């Protein structure tokens, strides 16, 4: 890039989130896909911690179990359940788009609302199952 080109103010299309666009279901489901993806990347490290704890023996496992069943651990678990349910459902939506299915505006909105609704229902159900599972 030459100096001349970099000094000139080129018009840019505005970012989808910000003052230029009103929030839309399509842009919001997209950014949430990325946010939940980042959260799940961190959550994946907890899964590695679980594997290492099992490999290390009963004492290490007890430490992991205590942390996981603490108030903090259960809150993180609930957050990860939400993230994986949303990212899974919306990921299937993206894969459908990648093969050209459901790209029409009406269908994109319908699948978006389906993802939102199904995420809410499944998250509540799975968090309830988690709390029931760890309860003595």
């Amino acid at each position: 890039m030459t100096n001349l080109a970099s000094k000139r103010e080129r018009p840019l299309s505005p970012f989808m989130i910000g003052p230029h666009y009103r929030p839309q279901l399509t842009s919001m489901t997209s950014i949430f896909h990325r946010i939940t993806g980042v959260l799940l990347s961190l959550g994946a490290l907890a899964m590695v911690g679980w594997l290492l704890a099992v490999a290390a023996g009963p004492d290490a496992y007890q430490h992991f179990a205590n942390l996981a069943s603490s108030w903090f651990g259960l809150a993180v678990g609930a957050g990860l359940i939400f993230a994986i349910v949303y990212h899974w459902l919306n990921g299937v939506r993206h894969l459908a788009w990648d093969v050209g299915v459901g790209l029409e505006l009406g269908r994109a909105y319908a699948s978006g609302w389906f993802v939102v609704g199904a995420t809410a229902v499944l998250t509540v159900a799975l968090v309830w199952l988690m709390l029931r599972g760890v309860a003595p």
Partner: protein
Amino acid sequence: MTHALRDPLKRARGLGAAKEGTSHFIAQRVSAIALAPLSIWFMVSAFSLLGGGYAEARVFLAQPFNAVLMAALVIALFHHAHLGLETVIEDYVHLRGLAFTLKIVVKFVAVLAVIASLFALVRIALGA
């Protein structure tokens, strides 16, 4: 008319101007397809192990079927996470040095996480 001006080889390769983005895009989708069933299997397994304690978790992971699927999950998951975090960094981190550093950190953490997981699975399987 414009098509006639385009080199057929360029169309056949289908790589676009940057030459390498397509493989990144496709690897993201292929790992996603692998993760769709693997993540369901993991969730069902994790919920069945809830409240089960050390012995139950160890027996579960020592079974070859579970160990193989767990290894597949870990590899696909960190491959997918690595590709996704790279995209997020490239899109939102505009300081080139910071973006470069973050991408290296993400890569190293992802590779270490896979190695550590496979080591743990082997150790559990061999009963060491």
